[in-house]
């Protein structure tokens, strides 16, 4: 059977995933996400109402919150934690994926086989992405189950929307982490380095764009990472602070935020391609 691209990419991705799955990094990140999600579950089941009370002025006494509002607040609370998990997972799996292979010379095992650099890179992206999704999925699963325990119903359609956008964000962050990995070459400080650079880039872009736009639109455009929970919650994340409004986002704004994620992905992919694939010698 002649090697085709699909076979090579699939075989290598499964191999890299096996290595990730048995790695300490995976155990650490999995344990961390499990701990965070269980903590969130306990807080949600036992303290959701008391947490909401904290945001309400003491002069106002509310005997009973309407369930839809509690559901929105529940989703908001979980999303505000979930939003940081993709970048954390991507930094663990993606930011060392290329640099450690180059540093350890393991890349030569694949470059001396009938495999193109593109296939190798694609399989690395896939394996890092799947490892990150597996870790974040744990959190999403606990969120889903806890929701059903508290509200005795399935989350509404916006949960699916939220999960899909999370998968997109994980992909963006994975590509970003791998682009960083292809630049740094050394794996030791890659994870923390990536987080710092990633936050710097997104905030600089955020500032630049907000300077060119109106405040409201600028906020949405520039905070691509935060847009996720805007989409998911379908509410203004600052509703308690500023307006107390639970008004939803328009479809246009949701799409815009997705475009921004895709924009980041394209830029990171370009960096990854030019730095890694255009390298004459891998050493």
């Amino acid at each position: 059977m002649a090697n085709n691209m699909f076979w090579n990419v699939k075989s290598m991705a499964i191999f890299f995933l096996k290595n990730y799955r048995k790695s300490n990094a995976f155990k650490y990140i999995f344990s961390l996400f499990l701990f965070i999600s269980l903590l969130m579950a306990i807080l949600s089941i036992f303290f959701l109402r008391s947490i909401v009370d904290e945001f309400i002025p003491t002069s106002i006494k509310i005997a009973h919150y309407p369930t839809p509002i509690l559901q929105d607040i529940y989703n908001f609370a979980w999303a505000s934690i979930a939003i940081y998990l993709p970048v954390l997972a991507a930094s663990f799996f993606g930011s060392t994926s290329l640099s450690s292979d180059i540093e350890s010379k393991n890349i030569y095992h694949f470059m001396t086989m009938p495999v193109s650099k593109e296939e190798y890179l694609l399989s690395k992206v896939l394996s890092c992405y799947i490892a990150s999704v597996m870790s974040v999925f744990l959190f999403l699963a606990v969120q889903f189950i806890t929701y059903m325990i508290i509200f005795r119903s399935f989350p509404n359609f916006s949960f699916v929307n939220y999960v899909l956008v999370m998968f997109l964000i994980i992909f963006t962050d994975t590509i970003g982490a791998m682009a960083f990995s292809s630049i740094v070459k050394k794996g030791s400080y890659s994870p923390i380095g990536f987080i710092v650079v990633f936050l710097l880039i997104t905030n600089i872009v955020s500032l630049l764009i907000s300077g060119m736009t109106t405040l409201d639109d600028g906020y949405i455009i520039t905070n691509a990472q935060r847009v996720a929970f805007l989409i998911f919650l379908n509410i203004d994340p600052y509703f308690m602070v500023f307006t107390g409004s639970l008004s939803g986002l328009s479809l246009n704004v949701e799409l815009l935020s997705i475009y921004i994620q895709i924009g980041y992905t394209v830029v990171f992919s370009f960096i990854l391609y030019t730095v890694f694939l255009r390298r004459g010698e891998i050493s």
Partner: protein
Amino acid sequence: MENSIIGIVGPNGSGKSTLLKIISGCVDDFEGTSFVDGISIVENHKECVRKVGALIENPWLYSYVNSYEMLEIAYKLRKGENGNRIEIESNLESLGLLSKKNVPLRDLSSGEKKRLSIGLAVVGSPDIIILDEPTDNMDAMGVDMFENLINKLKSEKERLIIITSHDLNIIGKICSRIIFLVGGEIREDLELDGHGYYLVLYTDGNFNPESFENYKTDHQGIGKIAVWIENEQMLNSFFNTITEKGIRVKNIEKITRAELEYKKIMGLKQ
């Protein structure tokens, strides 16, 4: 395809590994051309690499997978199909790693890892096998196993094996041709005839070099001469000559032709 074992030797930085990287397709940004069986490796990387199995540099290997999984991926990529369990296990056995097939690679010794890396390079029985420093970190048993493997590969089919090493003893033993590389250029290209070796005699200086006129010799300085020995008969005759001529020998050293030539080329003290 040339059926021989070529040894490439030279000091650090002479370009041995770079040359092997070019031949094995790891580098595509270089001046000149590189062909495998008449096919340009830059233009048709996959087709060329399919014919070449290579161990380049000294990879650390992936820490958390085991040797079975590592060989399995090599089979999948080289053959384009799932690896046959019996074939993989037989390969592990010939590498002396069958008992450790489920052990994570981080728990293997450096010699065992090296053996596995060599095993990865020969998966799929390629026409050309390139081994960069294959005996580094190997103990005597590992080197012995390596020699057996090379003999097995040589007897399997007509193929070209290229080896770089600083171990001139092993190069001298297994190679039929040696290329001396210095500063990126070929300094000497030697065909090795037979499986002989040199015996270097250290004497008190009172001997006539013509005593060894029936032998291939290399004068190494006052009181020192290297005599080429090809077989046991020649060895016996050599010792008889020493006795007959009354040559007082202070020391005898056995070296390969590769070692002798390398020292000459590099201008090292002999």
